[in-house]
């Protein structure tokens, strides 16, 4: 898990074949797993899809929602770790931001 907090963590990319609906339903056709996320999670996923940098995502969320920086950092790492565990983002398709 520690590697997720290193630089490579920020190079991760949403897998190409992941289907994300407007309602926040996520389907991974490679594993058959499906998940639901709340609107903020969906927003982060959309930003990851658009290959936004972590800094851009941080700015967007802090501007848009009433959240302090420390809480954002913690929740963001938790969320992205979960995306990694569920194979929604992949190390194989890393991109240098």
């Amino acid at each position: 898990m520690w590697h997720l907090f290193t630089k490579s963590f920020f190079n991760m990319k949403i897998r190409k074949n992941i289907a994300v609906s407007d309602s926040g339903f996520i389907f991974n056709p490679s594993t058959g797993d499906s998940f639901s996320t709340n609107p903020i999670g969906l927003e982060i996923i959309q930003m990851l899809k658009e290959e936004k940098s972590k800094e851009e995502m941080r700015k967007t969320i802090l501007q848009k929602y009433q959240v302090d920086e420390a809480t954002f950092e913690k929740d963001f790492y938790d969320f992205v770790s979960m995306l990694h565990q569920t194979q929604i983002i992949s190390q194989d398709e890393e991109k240098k931001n």
Partner: protein
Amino acid sequence: MKKRKINIAVTGLNNIDSPGPGIPVIRALRDSKKFDVRIIGLSYETLEPGLYMHDLVDKSYQVPFPSAGTEALLERLRYIHSVEKIDVIIPNFDAELQNFIKLEETLKKEMGISMFLPTHDQFEERHKANLMEFGKQHGIQVPFGKMIFSTAEIPSLTKDFTYPVVVKGKYYDASVAYNPEQVATYFNKLSAKWGLPIIIQQYVFGSEVNVTAIGDGKGNAIGAVPMRKQYITDKGKAWAGISLDDEKLVSIANKLLASSKWRGGMELEFIKSAAGEYFLLEINPRFPAWVYLAVGCGQNHPEALVLMALGEKVKPFKEYEKGKLFVRYSYDLIVDLKEFETISTLGEL
């Protein structure tokens, strides 16, 4: 396009908690755009639900159990054919396949009935007991396995295996055992039901993924649809599943169909490890009970099988829909006693 009228006899009508593939195969044939099918159900027992599904099965006949041998089966099929003029038979049980394979030529010559089955050698080499050898031959990873014939062999299993292990019956059923005592319990249970040997296989951690596939017997893969079980019954059967976008798995299936020159339908059962490796657990030499998912995904494997049985060339399917689910359900058929009486006494309904 005008549909061709055809009479097809199908076995495996036991649509129960461990369902036979008969009903899904019939549904696939009823969906065919090429054939207007009359379905003749072949049953072994009087409570196989397919017997009473008159919207799917036009007429049913009881056939002798596989243990009665080929002569008894042939005699019964002669009678059924004299009434029904069967064009194609699709057997759907592992245990009956050997008899049908032996009769394939006779049925064709004597009655003009076509089948599209694996050869005797193909049927034998993919057996659970021979699977490791099969894997080596076709370049596919298979978990280490061993046949045992007595409970006296259980203590020494630790030389070759680390627990947990999978204890498998000769034809059906498998249980995961975490210690020698559990192996002994499953050994007794499975050997009483299916006979010997019992197969011990190294347990591989991962998710179970299956493929329904069909080959033309010349090394061409006609179709393959991979699926992950999403809801599993206590018998290990899929009660819901989803088609996967898994090119690697499809290419393994195609490779196996090509190198084994598999003839007919088959189901491949794999474990995908956390590292993304695929281990072949089992090959079933017929369509699985979830074959209708392939139809839902755009590949009608039973229709392709009938075309090939009739000697026609079939173009391989190129695509299938990913992320399509099947969800199984149970349904209470209400049956008049008269129907039960008819099949029980006359052997046909």
